[in-house]
C-alpha cells in the first residue's frame, strides 16, 4: 500500500479514537453547544437587543445590509467553531498528550506526526459541524434566526476554510510543541483570529491598523461568503475575488504550515523535549 494511503488510514484511526474518547465525555459534547451559546451568542444577542429600534437591528442593517442579527451571529459561530478546532483540537491536543504521557509513544510509530494534525482536523471538524448544526437549529427555533436557501452555495467555502484551518493547525501546533506554557498563546490567538475574521461583528469596525490583517485571513472570506449567500449581506469584495483569495490563502497556509511543522518536529527530536511538560 502506498505511503499516502497508509497515512490517510492512520489519520482516520486518529480521528476515530478522538471521536470515541469524545463520546465518553458526554458533558464535554454538550459544552460544544452550550459554551458558544452562553459565552458569545446570548450576550451578543442581548447587546443587539439593547441597540434595536422597534425590534429591528437597523444599525447592523446600515452596516451590512441585513437586520437579521441572530442569523448574522449564528452563521459567524459556524466559522468560529472551525477556528476553535484548529487551535484546540489540532494544535493544543499535542500539549494534552504531552501532559498525559502519550505523545512520545505516538511519535515512536511510523505514522508522521503531521498526520495527527490531519486526524484531529477530521474529528474536530465533524464535532464542530455537528455542534454548529445544533446551534443553527436552536437559532432557527428559539432566537428568530433565518437563513436563506443560498446557505448550501457557501458549503465549498466552508470546506476550503476547513482546509486552511489545517494549515493554521500546523502552525499553532508548532508553537504548542515549542512553548513551555502554550495555554495563553492558544487562547489569545484563537480569540483574535476569530474576532478579526469578522465572526462577531463587521470587519469594517476594526481599527485601521488591524483591518488589513482581516483581509489576509481565509476565514474572513469564508464567513463573509456564508453570510452573503445565506442572508444576502453586502460582500466585502467581489465574491469571485473572495473565492480566489480563499483558495490561494488556504493552499499557502497548508504548504507553509507543513514546512514549519516538520522543522519543529526535527527540533523536538534534536532537543529531546517530547516527553517534557
Amino acid at each position, binding site marked *: 500500500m502506498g505511503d499516502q494511503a497508509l497515512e490517510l488510514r492512520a489519520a482516520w484511526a486518529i480521528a476515530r479514537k478522538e471521536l470515541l474518547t469524545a463520546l465518553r465525555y458526554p458533558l464535554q459534547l454538550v459544552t460544544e453547544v452550550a459554551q458558544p451559546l*452562553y459565552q458569545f451568542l446570548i*450576550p451578543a444577542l442581548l*447587546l443587539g437587543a439593547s*441597540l434595536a429600534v422597534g425590534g429591528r*437591528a437597523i*444599525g447592523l442593517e446600515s452596516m451590512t445590509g441585513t437586520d437579521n442579527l441572530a442569523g448574522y451571529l449564528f452563521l459567524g459561530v459556524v466559522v468560529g467553531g472551525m477556528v476553535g478546532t484548529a487551535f484546540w483540537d489540532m494544535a493544543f491536543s499535542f500539549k494534552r498528550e504531552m501532559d498525559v504521557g502519550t505523545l512520545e509513544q505516538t511519535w515512536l510509530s511510523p505514522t508522521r506526526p503531521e498526520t495527527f494534525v490531519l486526524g484531529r482536523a477530521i474529528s474536530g471538524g465533524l464535532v464542530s459541524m455537528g455542534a454548529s448544526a445544533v446551534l443553527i437549529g436552536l437559532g432557527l427555533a428559539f432566537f428568530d434566526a433565518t437563513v436563506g436557501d443560498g446557505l448550501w452555495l457557501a458549503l465549498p467555502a466552508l470546506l476550503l476554510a476547513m482546509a486552511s484551518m489545517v494549515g493554521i493547525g500546523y502552525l499553532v501546533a508548532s508553537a504548542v510543541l515549542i512553548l513551555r506554557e502554550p495555554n*495563553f498563546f492558544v487562547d489569545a490567538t484563537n480569540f483574535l483570529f476569530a474576532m478579526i475574521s469578522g465572526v462577531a461583528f463587521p470587519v469594517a*469596525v476594526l481599527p485601521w491598523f488591524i483591518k488589513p490583517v482581516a483581509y489576509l485571513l481565509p476565514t474572513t472570506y469564508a464567513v463573509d461568503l456564508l453570510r452573503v449567500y445565506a442572508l444576502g449581506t453586502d460582500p466585502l469584495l467581489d465574491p469571485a475575488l473572495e473565492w480566489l483569495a480563499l483558495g490561494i490563502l488556504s493552499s499557502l497556509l497548508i504548504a507553509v504550515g507543513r514546512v514549519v511543522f516538520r522543522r519543529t518536529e526535527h527540533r523536538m527530536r534534536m532537543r529531546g523535549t517530547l516527553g517534557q511538560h
Partner: protein
Amino acid sequence: MSTLLGDLRAFAAAGAKEFRILRRYPTLFLGFLFWPIVLPFAYVLQARGFAGDSAEASAAFASRAGTSDVVGFLFLGFAAYMWISMILWGPGTALRTEQVRGSLEALFLTPASRLVILFGPAFSQIVWALYMFGLVGAAMVFVFGIHIGLMEALRALAIIAVSVPALYGMGALFASVVLRFGEVSALVQTVRGVFTAFCGMTFPIIVLPEWGRAVALSLPPTYLIGGLRSALLAEADLVSLVPDMAILLATGLFLCGAAVVAFRTTERYARRGGRLAQY
C-alpha cells in the same frame, strides 16, 4: 486566642501559597493583562457594528442603559464577569483540585479551622481582582478617555468591597457542591452561563422579559454590575447606592452561611464514605 491567631496565620499562609503557585506560571500574568482589555473591547467593536451609522440605535441604547457610554458600560460588565470567572475557577474549584491532587486529606489532618480551608484560597485572589479592576479603570480613563473622579472611584471600591462576601460566599458554596459532585467543568459552565444570560454583563436588564428580570434580580452579580455602572457612569451618589449595597451584604452573609453548612455536610459525607482521597 492562640487558636484564632493560628487560624489567621493559616489564612495568610493559604493566600500566600496560592499566590506563589500563580507566580510560577508567568503566562498567567499575560492573561491578566490581555483579557480584561481585549475581551470587552471586542464587544465594544460589536456594539459599534450593531449600532452602525444609526443615531436612533445609539439613542435606544442610551435610554435603556441610562448612559450613552457604551465603552464604560461594557468594560464594567466584563470586569465583573471576569472576577466571577476567577472566583469560580479559583476558589470555586480549589477543594476539588486539592482532592484530585491528593492533598485534601493532608489539609483535613491539620488543626486549622475548616473556614481556612474553605475561604483561604480566596485571599490571594482578592489581590488579583483589585489589580484587574485597576487595569480596567486605567484602560477606561487613559485609552478611552472616560472621566472617573476620585469620589466615583471610591464609590466603585465600596461596591466591590460589599460584593466580596457575596461573591466569595458563592464561590465557597460552589466549592462544596463541586467537591460533592465532581464534574467541575460542567458546573462552572452552567453557573457562568446563567450569569452571562441574566446579570446584564453586556446589556441593560430591562431588555430581558419579565421572568428574566426576576431571575436577574435574584443574582448578586446583577447588583455588582449595576452598582459599578451607577457609580462610575451615572455618577450616582452613595445614598442612592445604599439599597443595592445592602442587598449585596445581606446576600453575602446568607451565602457565606450556606457555604459553611454545605461544606460541613460534604465533609461528613466524605468522611463516612472515605472519599477525601477519592475523585
